[in-house]
């Protein structure tokens, strides 16, 4: 009985949450200015990935090793805190880029007369992967090789979703041009 009550409670909460979200989705459509601004923002290219090289440099082990010998513990702690803030800022930006591209892909898909199952499945899977690695990176210790590999992987995913969106646009173009 208790399992059923928990299951139904979760499903009810989901139902109300999704209903509220669907209604919220309806709101901007009534405000054409807001919709235009939102669409224009979505069409902007990802702006945060270009800082990746600097971020990777900031996470280099050499800096930590250098400071371990030269700086006081207080300075090192402040440096670590600053570094974490910078990396988290980069990650937040990366997510912003990703969500924007993903939204654009979904909007284009929703407006298209024919969808590619493969591309849709792939975008969904990329979204799950991105959010997973994003969550892991958010709590991962800085400076380790593991963190750097994760950052590589997550940044790469933003590139992949950009690829997928381009492919979706091409596929839709072909479907639209196909004679009926």
């Amino acid at each position, binding site marked *: 009985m208790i399992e059923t009550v928990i299951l139904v409670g979760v499903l009810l909460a989901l139902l109300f949450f999704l209903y509220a979200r*669907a209604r919220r*989705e309806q709101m901007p459509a009534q405000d054409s200015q807001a919709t235009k601004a939102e669409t224009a923002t979505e069409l902007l290219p990802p702006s945060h990935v270009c800082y990746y090289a600097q971020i990777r440099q900031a996470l280099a082990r050499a800096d930590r090793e250098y400071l371990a010998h030269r700086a006081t513990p207080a300075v090192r702690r402040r440096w670590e805190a600053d570094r974490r803030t910078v990396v988290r800022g980069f990650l937040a930006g990366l997510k912003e880029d990703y969500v924007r*591209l993903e939204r654009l892909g979904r909007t284009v898909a929703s407006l298209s007369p024919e969808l590619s199952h493969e591309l849709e499945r792939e975008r969904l899977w990329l979204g799950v992967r991105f959010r997973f690695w994003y969550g892991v990176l958010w709590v991962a210790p800085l400076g380790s090789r593991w963190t750097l590999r994760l950052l590589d992987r997550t940044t790469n995913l933003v590139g992949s979703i*950009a690829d997928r969106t381009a492919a979706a646009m091409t596929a839709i173009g072909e479907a639209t041009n196909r004679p009926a």
Partner: protein
Amino acid sequence: MELTRSDYVLWIVSTVLQLAVCGLVLRGGLYLRLPAFSAYVWLNLLTLALVWWAYLRLGYSSMFYIGWAAFGVALLARGLVVGELCRRVLRLYRGVWALAWRLLVGAAMLLLVYAGLAAYGTRDRLETFFMTAERGMELAAAIVLLLLLVISSYYRIPVPMLEGMLALGLGVWSLLQVVNNVALLLWPDYYAWGSAVKMVSFQLVLLIWIAALRKPVPQEGQALPVLSQRAYDELAPQTNLRLRLLNERLLEIFKT
């Protein structure tokens, strides 16, 4: 089994609310927009009248069979309503609808097979069989409605307020029935309460529907949100160029 005064009060309240919903359906011309839903609310009213008649004329034992038969028909009609709501919300988005209906039908079939198997295991007792089958079907209806909202949310498809509230009402009703049903199966003493809970939850759903239907049904005929060739010709190259630039930039980062 004698009905108590509270049973009569609940039946009267339900009848009044159902009459209100039926009246609103007629007033707004909803039968043109949502024929299955309109038929369903009228069918519910007829079912209520039939069960009343059976109880007063034929007694409780006849009412049991007539009640379950009427309930089965209403459950099937509700399945049609769920399908209608899914089609109404997604039909303008041709690509998404073509992808989604298969997913929704697949999920419904899977859940109905599960309900059938669960009910088959309890075939020795008729009442338990009906209740287990009912629980599975209610769960299937609720999950299909949830999937509809997930798909709408994923593709940012606006759900019209009317269809959204009707779906919310149906989903709430189905999920409450699942809990009520399990309680009825576990505790036979809960029977009198279970019937009251069922009616009160249905009244709650009727109130949600009245709230949805009290405003005039908005006019249809919104522009189809399919990309026009011209819009596509302008949008696609721009986006492709930006995405290509992004990819080149990424490659540069990885090369350094």
